[in-house]
């Protein structure tokens, strides 16, 4: 009997899938999805400079340039490859080039793309474009971004074809399940700053795109909003009450971190967070403060590892202990694969006893749910944006071999994270060591 069950389930699944795809196909070119614009509606050249300036900082909050610019490519000209579990998607050219960009898009075409995830031709857009968040953005803010983008230099750059398994019509099903269109209802229980912060975080800033875990269909898990996710191999820490931050984030620390990429009490915005902080450095402080107010409130009295680690923060009861662990403590030559010995000879010179590197007790990279960030920062370091000053940690990729890196990571977790061991450190090391091959197609 048991052996017959799969044979019944599989045809049923295939049948359901066929119905879903048929439904989706019918939905693909819904009458209301026909372009709302004339074949060519050149943008109005008389945008109010104030509107353009507002669009510029709104686009910075939206982090548009990060995805829509290939490495070494022209800004907003697209071509950046986004690797998803379903295939590779290329970010489109959003400069006002009429042939390869959005030069022929009307304001209403743009509004519809942002809020409903439909392109000018009426095709569903893949939700790698986070319209599940942008649907909450007010028309007037979208219009300001439109004015900003339409006044950029047009760049002729054809977006490469996506290499993805999911047909566009199937996106209709995804939208029916996960797109909750329309504005957010303000929460009267909270003040204006909190509500402004939620509007930005849930909407334009789309923080949840990285900081919320996703389900098998690639949608954010609604019940685990901001509970931590992943971004291109990096771990995006939880920003809700499960925050793993070793010490409480204050609103002021969040503002500093988001606007400068560094908080003395927590560390540096590295990996995929670095461009976010760079963008927010161009945004009016009051907006970043609203984001900080909301995130700090969401973290609240979080249940992370801070209770045990807080005692080791500067001035705390454990602080004296670090200084005793300085690089002057002798190390035995046969300890080449001992995490403690490696820390003392290779890391302590900067990180121990309140020297120039951040005390690792304070770093979320040692308390988070996976070692992804700690391994990546150890291998590749932290580097300021090209041509700008900023925090710097050298790369240790060549200095540490695999027999040394894994024990070091295990040691840092125990000693500074005060947390149970991570599973599969070796596997994460292997993933992080895989050579990064950019699939970007940049404009020339």
């Amino acid at each position, binding site marked *: 009997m048991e052996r017959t069950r799969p044979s019944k389930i599989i045809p049923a699944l295939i049948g359901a899938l066929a119905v879903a795809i048929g439904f989706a196909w019918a939905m693909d070119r819904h009458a209301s999805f026909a372009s709302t614009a004339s074949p060519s509606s050149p943008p109005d050249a008389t945008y109010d400079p104030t509107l353009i300036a507002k669009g510029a900082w709104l686009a910075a909050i939206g982090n548009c340039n990060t995805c829509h610019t290939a490495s070494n490519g022209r800004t907003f000209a697209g071509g950046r490859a986004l690797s998803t579990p379903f295939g590779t998607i290329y970010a489109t050219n959003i400069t006002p080039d009429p042939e390869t960009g959005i030069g022929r898009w009307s304001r209403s075409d743009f509004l519809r793309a942002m809020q409903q995830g439909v392109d000018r031709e009426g095709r569903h857009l893949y939700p790698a474009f986070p319209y599940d968040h942008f649907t909450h953005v007010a028309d007037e803010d979208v219009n300001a971004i439109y004015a900003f983008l339409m006044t950029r230099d047009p760049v002729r750059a054809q977006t490469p074809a996506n290499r993805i398994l999911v047909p566009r019509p199937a996106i209709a099903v995804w939208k029916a399940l996960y797109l909750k269109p329309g504005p957010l209802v303000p929460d009267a229980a909270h003040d204006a700053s909190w509500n402004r912060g939620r509007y930005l975080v849930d909407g334009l800033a789309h923080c949840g795109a990285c900081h919320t875990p996703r389900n098998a269909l690639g949608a954010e898990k609604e019940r685990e909003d901001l509970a931590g996710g992943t971004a291109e191999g990096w771990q995006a820490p939880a920003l809700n009450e499960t925050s793993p931050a070793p010490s409480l984030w204050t609103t002021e620390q969040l503002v500093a971190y988001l606007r400068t990429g560094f908080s003395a009490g927590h560390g540096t915005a590295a990996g995929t967070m670095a461009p976010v902080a760079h963008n927010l450095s161009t945004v009016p402080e009051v907006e970043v403060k609203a984001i900080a107010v909301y995130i700090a409130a969401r973290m609240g009295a979080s249940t992370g590892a801070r209770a045990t680690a807080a005692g080791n923060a500067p001035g705390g009861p454990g602080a004296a202990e670090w200084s005793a662990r300085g690089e002057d403590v002798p190390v035995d030559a046969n300890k080449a694969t001992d995490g403690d*010995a*490696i820390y003392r000879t290779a890391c302590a010179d900067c990180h121990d006893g309140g020297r120039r590197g951040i005390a690792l007790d304070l770093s979320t990279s040692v308390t988070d749910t996976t070692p992804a960030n700690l391994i990546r920062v150890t291998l590749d370091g932290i580097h300021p944006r090209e041509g700008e000053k900023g925090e710097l940690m*050298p790369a240790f990729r*060549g200095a540490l*071999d695999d027999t040394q890196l894994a024990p070091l990571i295990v040691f840092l977790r125990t000693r500074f994270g005060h947390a149970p061991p991570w599973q599969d450190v070796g596997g994460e090391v292997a993933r992080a060591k895989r050579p990064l091959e950019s699939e970007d197609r940049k404009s020339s």
Partner: protein
Amino acid sequence: MITLNVNGRAHEVDADPATPLLYVLRNDLKLNGAKFGCGLGQCGACTVMVDGEAVYSCLTPILLLQGRAIKTLEGLGSAERPGPLQQAFIDEQAAQCGYCIPGMIMRAQALLERNPSPSDDEIRAHMNPGLCRCGTHIRILRAVHRASKTMQGAIPGGKRA
């Protein structure tokens, strides 16, 4: 005692395991190619190769290097018989004050051993961590391109006619 394999030769070194490789190379082994620049892994003047990868010798303790293959500038050739990459730097006159050049050469060597025909973008990205305050970057790029060709026999090495 720690045993280090430098340029194919085993050396017994009597030093604290926490000693940075750079000090052992210069003070104990008298291999003065690698230079002390910043001591913080920010300039690249101290760069050597370990197991084929570019490494800052100023912040790599010798504890980590037992049994691993260390290659320094001296391992590529000598003043009398420069190796192909060294010859390319001479041919392109890629040094001004020259202090960063040993690190630049070792970083480039690591790239060419892994990728014999790098594109200009690949060379720029790989060489990015190396600082040259004289500003000879364009000549350094030319030298790496030239070495890539001579090492594959596409053009003869040696001085330009």
